[in-house]
């Protein structure tokens, strides 16, 4: 019966190949949307972990997480270094990392921080940062770069780089008298760290000498810079790790009510969740649309089967004369639809992996994590739903044929 069904399908290959393609593509789309969603969700939630609070100038929680973690957008205000020191010095604080943002190098963000960053910052499942090559910055003019920066700009340890003031990609005003030496390159993390450069807070101060009025008034040399007091005056935000996570809310209250300047503290988990749910609407719409596309594919299969139903009543009468029971004819049509849907699902999955391999080849340096994993449980569920829907659509012509073959007898009157 299987062989007969296959032969009969091959006979109508012209129409069915089109349907097969549309089924494969719709399954690809369906799974692709699902997979992108899962990948972006995990890469999203793994950007920061182990940090209990992030503090910054008062703004929206989304804005604060965007610039302090994703290095996107800009801080509205800085916080004074003294306020930071006072808050970071409180007894419930286990560790803290100050961040000073706002400069860039060839489109990559430069982060001013302390070497505590490499000690305490963790991502994913509390992974600490590790060096692929070299070590953390020692000197004022040392810089540590993320893996994507190294790969894209082809940098090695001990290369010297120029740090721009401001965040633009092309900057007319570069601090070109103050080259930095690459002291270390970090291992890939799949987080925004890969696309960042890290220098000391003093280094940030140094590249701003001569820029006190917002524009370059004088050039400084390395020796001149070293002679100036470079201790930081302000930072943009800070990561805080607490000794006891249960004190997070009370510490947050203290920061939010800080008397000297308007500050805020956020819980990264909650902020990430809010950011994700903002994108959730688009994500749901995409899932819905891709589901509808699968449905359209199945309906085209159904209509193709229905269109030939009348013509096939003859075939069915013939098969019955050979001793086929109506149930067998039912199976016959059912198997046809099953073969089609199963083939569609299979090649949809196959295409998904092909696309994923292609994409990860293209974007290998972008820090996007595209693990080639087996279909996840939710993907299996989607596949099974698709297959079940395909079988249901196959049932309709099968049942109709079954009933017709019972009443037709040997005479098919069309």
């Amino acid at each position: 019966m299987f062989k007969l069904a296959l032969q009969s399908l091959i006979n109508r290959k012209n129409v069915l190949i089109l349907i097969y393609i549309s089924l494969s593509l719709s399954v690809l789309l369906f799974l692709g949307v699902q997979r992108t969603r899962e990948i972006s969700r995990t890469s999203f939630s793994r950007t920061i972990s182990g940090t209990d609070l992030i503090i910054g100038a008062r703004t929206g929680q989304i804005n604060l997480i965007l610039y302090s973690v994703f290095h996107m957008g800009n801080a509205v205000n800085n916080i004074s270094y003294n306020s930071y020191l006072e808050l970071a010095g409180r007894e419930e604080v286990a560790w803290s990392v100050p961040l000073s943002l706002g400069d860039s190098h060839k489109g990559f963000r430069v982060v001013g921080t302390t070497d505590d960053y490499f000690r305490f910052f963790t991502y994913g499942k509390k992974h600490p940062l590790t060096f692929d090559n070299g070590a953390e910055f020692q000197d004022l003019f040392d810089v540590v770069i993320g893996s994507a920066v190294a790969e894209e700009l082809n940098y090695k340890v001990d290369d010297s780089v120029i740090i721009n003031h401001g965040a633009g990609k092309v900057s007319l005003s570069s601090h070109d008298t103050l080259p930095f030496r690459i002291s270390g390159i970090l291992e890939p993390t799949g987080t925004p760290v890969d696309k960042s450069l890290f220098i000391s807070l003093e280094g940030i101060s140094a590249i701003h000498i001569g820029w006190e009025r917002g524009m370059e008034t004088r050039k400084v040399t390395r020796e001149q810079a070293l002679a100036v007091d470079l201790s930081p005056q302000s930072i943009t935000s800070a990561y805080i790790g607490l000794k006891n996570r249960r004190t997070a809310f009370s510490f947050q209250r203290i920061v939010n009510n800080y008397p000297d300047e308007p500050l805020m503290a956020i819980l990264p988990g909650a902020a990430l969740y809010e950011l994700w749910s903002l994108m959730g609407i688009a994500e749901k719409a995409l899932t819905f649309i891709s589901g509808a596309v699968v449905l359209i594919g199945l309906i085209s299969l159904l209509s193709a089967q229905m269109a030939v139903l009348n013509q096939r009543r003859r075939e069915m009468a013939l098969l019955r004369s050979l001793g086929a029971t109506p149930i067998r004819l039912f199976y016959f049509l059912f198997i046809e639809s099953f073969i089609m849907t199963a083939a569609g699902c299979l090649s949809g999955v196959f295409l998904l992996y092909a696309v994923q391999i292609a994409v990860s080849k293209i974007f290998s340096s972008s820090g996007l994590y595209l693990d080639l994993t087996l279909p996840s449980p939710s993907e299996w569920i989607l596949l099974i739903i698709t297959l079940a829907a395909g079988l249901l659509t196959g049932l309709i012509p099968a049942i109709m044929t079954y009933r017709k073959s019972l009443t037709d007898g040997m005479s098919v009157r069309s």
Partner: protein
Amino acid sequence: MIHLENALFAWPDEEALINIRDFSVKEGEKVFLKGSSGSGKTTLLSLVAGIQTIQSGSLKVRGEELKNMKCHKRDRFRGDHMGYIFQQFNLLPWLSIEDNILAPVLFSPVKRKKEKGKHHNKVRELLDELSLDVDLRKKAGNLSIGQQQRVAVARALIGNPELIIADEPTSALDADRRKNFMNLLFSECEKRGATLLVVSHDRELATRFSRVVDLESINGGAYV
């Protein structure tokens, strides 16, 4: 081989089309059943083949009462003991000629056993006898109607069923081919000792038949 007694059959919402008091066909007999179009010939064959069942009375084939059999048993019975030739569209156009001829063997274990695993040789023999010189692997849809009908005979004969039923097998053929085809069908059944039941409205074809029956004369159904 076939025995009808007070057999009554009506299509849904219609008067009884078949009402046969007494009609039988003996084993090995070749019977030509004549009836005009719409008189219920095809319906009667559906009943004999067990696709439809009579509503009352008795219809026995090989001594077995068809209406007492379960549905799938009847289908099995038909597959095992009968060969059926339609007016036209006898073949599955998307199967090769060989696969078409071998289809009954696929459906019926009894026919398969009778061919003792030599069914591929048998196909060749049959096509020789029917003087069909074609490539067996060709799709059946490519044949002319005359060739298709002859392939249909080969398919009906494979597995040596006891009863061959043909429903106006020549109506799609050219006039000068009809006689020829009937002769062929007749001799093939003769050679195997199979019982042959042919229905047609064309009396001209009945020349070699031992028995010619008018459907109207045995059927008291609604058709006038």
